[in-house]
Structure formats: structure tokens, C-alpha cells
């Protein structure tokens, strides 16, 4: 017997899930470590790669852009902002702020839905 299905599909970006994924990546790479100028480049690259891999693994149809900034705590202030023009129903971004005693880390993930 033929089965009749009426389905409405929308895929939208889940910011909370992505947030958790990214936070775990950061913790795994620089959790409990002090700022070290020699290693900080390795760290930013690892964080970006690792987060990206984890996000892609989720298998959702998105294009991702991941940005990571690490700043040493020296008393200076850091201020950033971002905004996008896209399909607000399906696309989304999330920004994760993380800090320890010696440094700040800000990771932004932008997810743009793949339509085909």
C-alpha cells in the first residue's frame, strides 16, 4: 500500500549544541594552561581545527566559519562585535567566551545553511 507523507522540513542552526561543542574543544586544548607566547599560535590553530571537525561531524548541512582569538591578560581591554546578513531562519552564529587566570579566548562560529 502506498504511504502518504506530508513533511515540512527546516534545518536551523542549534547554537546551544555548538556552544557546548566549542567550549569542550577549548577546555581540551588550553584548559588549565597559562599563556605562553611560543605556543599560542598552535593553540589558536588547534582550537579552530578541532571545533570545525566536531561541528562537521554532526552531519548537518551547513557551511561553517570558525574564528578564534586568544588575548593575554595584561590589563588592557578587548572589545569585538559581529553581525551578518543571511537567512535568519536557517543560518546562525554563536560566540563562546572563555577565560582563565592568564588569558581570554573568544571563539565565533558562523553556520550558513547549504541549500543543495
Amino acid at each position, binding site marked *: 500500500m*502506498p504511504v*502518504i*507523507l*506530508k*513533511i515540512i*522540513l527546516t534545518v536551523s542552526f542549534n547554537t546551544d549544541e555548538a556552544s557546548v561543542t566549542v567550549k569542550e574543544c577549548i577546555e581540551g586544548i588550553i584548559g588549565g594552561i597559562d599563556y605562553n607566547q611560543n605556543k599560542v599560535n598552535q593553540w589558536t590553530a588547534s582550537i579552530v581545527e578541532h571545533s570545525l571537525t566536531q561541528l562537521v561531524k554532526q552531519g548537518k548541512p551547513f557551511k561553517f566559519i570558525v574564528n578564534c582569538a586568544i*588575548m593575554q*591578560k595584561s*590589563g*588592557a*581591554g*578587548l*572589545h*569585538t*562585535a*559581529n*553581525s*551578518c*546578513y*543571511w*537567512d*535568519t*531562519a536557517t*543560518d*546562525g*552564529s554563536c*560566540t563562546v*567566551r572563555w*577565560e582563565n587566570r592568564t588569558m*581570554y579566548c*573568544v571563539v*565565533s562560529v558562523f553556520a550558513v545553511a547549504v*541549500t*543543495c
Partner: protein
Amino acid sequence: MGDRSGLQAASQLFWKQGCTMMFKDVADFCICVSMTRRGLRLGMAKVTQVDFPPKEMVSYSKETQTPTDTQTHTQARPEEEEDEEELAEAKPAEDSQEKKADQEEKQEEAPPKELTEEEKMHLLHSDEFLTFFDRGSRIVERALSERVDVCFDYSGRDLEDKEGEMQAGAKMSLNRTFSDERWSKNRVVTCLDWSPQYPELLVASYNNNEDVPHEPDGVALVWNMKYKKTTPEYTFHCQHPVYCVNVVGTQNAHNLISISTDGKMCSWSLDMLSQPQDCLELVFKQSKAVAVTSMAFPLGDVNNFVVGSEDGSVYTACRHGSKAGISDVFEGHHGPVTGLSCHSAGGPVDFSHLFISASFDWTVKLWTTKSTRPLYSFEDSCDYVYDVMWSPTHPALFACVDGSGRLDLWNLNNDTEVPSASVVVDGSTALNRVRWSHSGREIATGDSDGQVLVYDVGEPICVPKPDEWSRLVHTLMEINENRDEGDELAAQRLVA
């Protein structure tokens, strides 16, 4: 359906028209879905912002008494420069004439170099000159303020008449008053201390001057008793008002301890004053943070100390060790504790378990660390008692100051009901701080108007006789007996 293009065409129809489709199997359906193209609707996303504010840097600057920006060409300059200028003006700056002048002067002195404007300014602002000027002006100021009586007759003939005057009423006499128009006017004296190294130096700290908000909030001035000049030796200022500090330890291994009303005790190294070396949270019974208003260390002890709090209780505590933090509580005052002092007069008998506390409840109470109830309560004051301190030399003597401007000296061996000596400061100021000098002969007090007054205490009062210590042992025994009797009576009354 089957073939890909067919599926693609179908998918477009599917979504556009929302019509019903027939698929051969689930696989085809999935492919069809994945091929859909929906109409794009684009919009602006909300702006995401990340802010890490800059850290507020607490700065402290040290300034010597004569600020550098008031120096100009017209002020007194070292002799050589004056001579140079005069000579330079006298001679025209032409080569031939200069050479001639040089030759003329060769025998008298080295020819003065004519400095350009720039060089002069550079010299005046150089470190060497500034240090010299600073030292020189301080010495000159001291010399100008000295008033030496050249007609003093050491044979004593003149003194015969005055002897009577000097003996009578010589309990306490005002020696000096220190006040600075710019830095201490309108600020309350928050803390005082005498230098152990130079007995004539006294440091006073002040809180903020509400009338002048752009001046630094915290000021500390070093005053010199030895010379009659009326300006402070050194001036320090910092951004935050200074409340209370204490240096504990020996000359080599010492810490600066500061304590605050948020219950935190911080220990600082004098090399790095931007961050405390370590902090200790003072919490009573693991829950209540103690709002500390005063602190005292017993003589020679750098670990155990007593603190008084806003709620009227006094606590003993330790800085280090397994029992770091609050140990015992001494309840008795009905108002915030304003001052604490641990017994420090060394002698044949050790009284270091005694300490006294002053409070807003108009009383000064005597305690021993061996008991959590007060030994005695001194209730002669009619105003908030702001500070109290044991004499460093006399075991039974202590001073206290209150909000009505009264400075009282109590001698436990003489009388515990009334003070042995008392003086009221002129003007309607409250006395905020009292500090004996290390010799035990002078008392410094600070008032709410920024004045520091130093009193000389008469010998009969402040110099202890050899039997003071044993007399104090008797006095304490009496006090103890009276207290126990008092408690028994109170208990009987409750029962009845």
C-alpha cells in the same frame, strides 16, 4: 520514478506547489528532498558583542615636599650659575672678545661657559639638580624655622620663678600641632605611627577630602618632631583612602598587613604593592564574614592576632597554619569595635594575654585571651570611644580618645573608675586616633579635621616604677574576683 533528472524536476514541483507525490521507495523520497531549492529570504542578524573591560590600575606616587613644577628661573639658584649669568651678560658674545676675556680670566678661575636657553632648561630639570635642590631646600627650611634662644641662662637663676609653674599641672602638655594647609586640611586622620628607627618621625595617614574631589583620595604625611618647621618631611599619595596598615615582623622579614571591612586580610610585600602576596578570608563559623574595623598583633607575634568587628565582637585569629582564620569570639561590646591594643610593655611579669578594646558603646573593655568574657569595663566616657592604646613602657597605663575631643590616661594600679589624667582638645573636633611614641613619653593623636597633636606626658605618670608589674598582678586578681562575684550575683538574681 527512478532517474535523477526526473527526481529533480519532481522536487521542484513538490516544494513549489506542495502537491502530493508518489515515490517508488524511501530512497527516492530522500533524494528528492535533498534536491529541493527553497526561496531565499535574507535578513540582518543581531550584532554579537564581546567585551573584556580593561583592568583598573591602582597607582601610587611618591612626591617629595617641594614639587618640581614650582621651580622657575627666578628662584634661588646655585652660586655658580648666578655668577655665570652675570659674567655672560657683562661680555658680548663675540669670538674675539670672548677669547680675550678667557685669557684675562685664566688666572682667576676657569672661564664660565655660556649656556644656551635650552641647555639651562635641561640642567634645571636634570635628576642631579633636582635631588640637590630638594635636599638643599629642606635643610634651609629647617634652619629658617629654628628659633634658638641665645640668651638662655644655664645657671638656673631665671628658672627659679618658673619652677612652681612647671611642676603644677604637668600631667600632659601640648607639645606640637601638625597640620598642612594643602594636604591635611579637611581630611580625617585615619592612622598614626611612630618610626622605630628615628624616634622623632611620625607618619599620619588621611582619608579623602570631600571638598576637593580631584585631589588624590589617600594621603600619608611624614612629620618631624625634631625641627620646628611646620611642613611635612615627605608626602605620599594614592588613589584610594588609606584606613589602616600595620607592619609586622623584623627588619628583614616583614610584611605589610592590611585589613578591610569586607572580611579580607591581605599581606603585601613592600616590593610589589600592586597585588597582595596572599589574602585570608576571615569567616566566623564558616559562614559569616567578619566586617573588620580594627586589628592588633601581640608583641613579637606575627601569626596570632585580634580583630574587632562592626557587630561589636572581638575575635582572635591566626594568619598561618592549619587553624588559619578565626579562632575564638569575645562578645561584650554593644557597638562596633573601633580600636584594639595588645599589651606590649615588657617587664618581669608577662601580661601579653591582656588586650583592650574601644567601641561606639562609650566603653573601653579589658580582656584576657584566656577568657571570652571581658575582665573590666571602663565607662567614664560620654561619647563614642574611637581608639585605645597600651603604653609601650608602663604596664598598667593606657590612653584612649573619644568623639568629644577628650584624651584620657588610665592607670590600672591607681584607679579603675576614673582616668588618672585627662585633657580636652580645643575646637569641637573628635579625636580619631591615639599613638604612644616608642619611648612612652609622648602621645600623638589625630583629629577629624586633619590635625595631628603631640602631647608630652609628665614623668610621674608615664614612667613606671619598678613595682608596677607586681602591683598590676594584684590589681588583676582583684578585678578577677570582682568579676566572678558580679557574675554570681547576676546569676542569683536571674534564678530569683
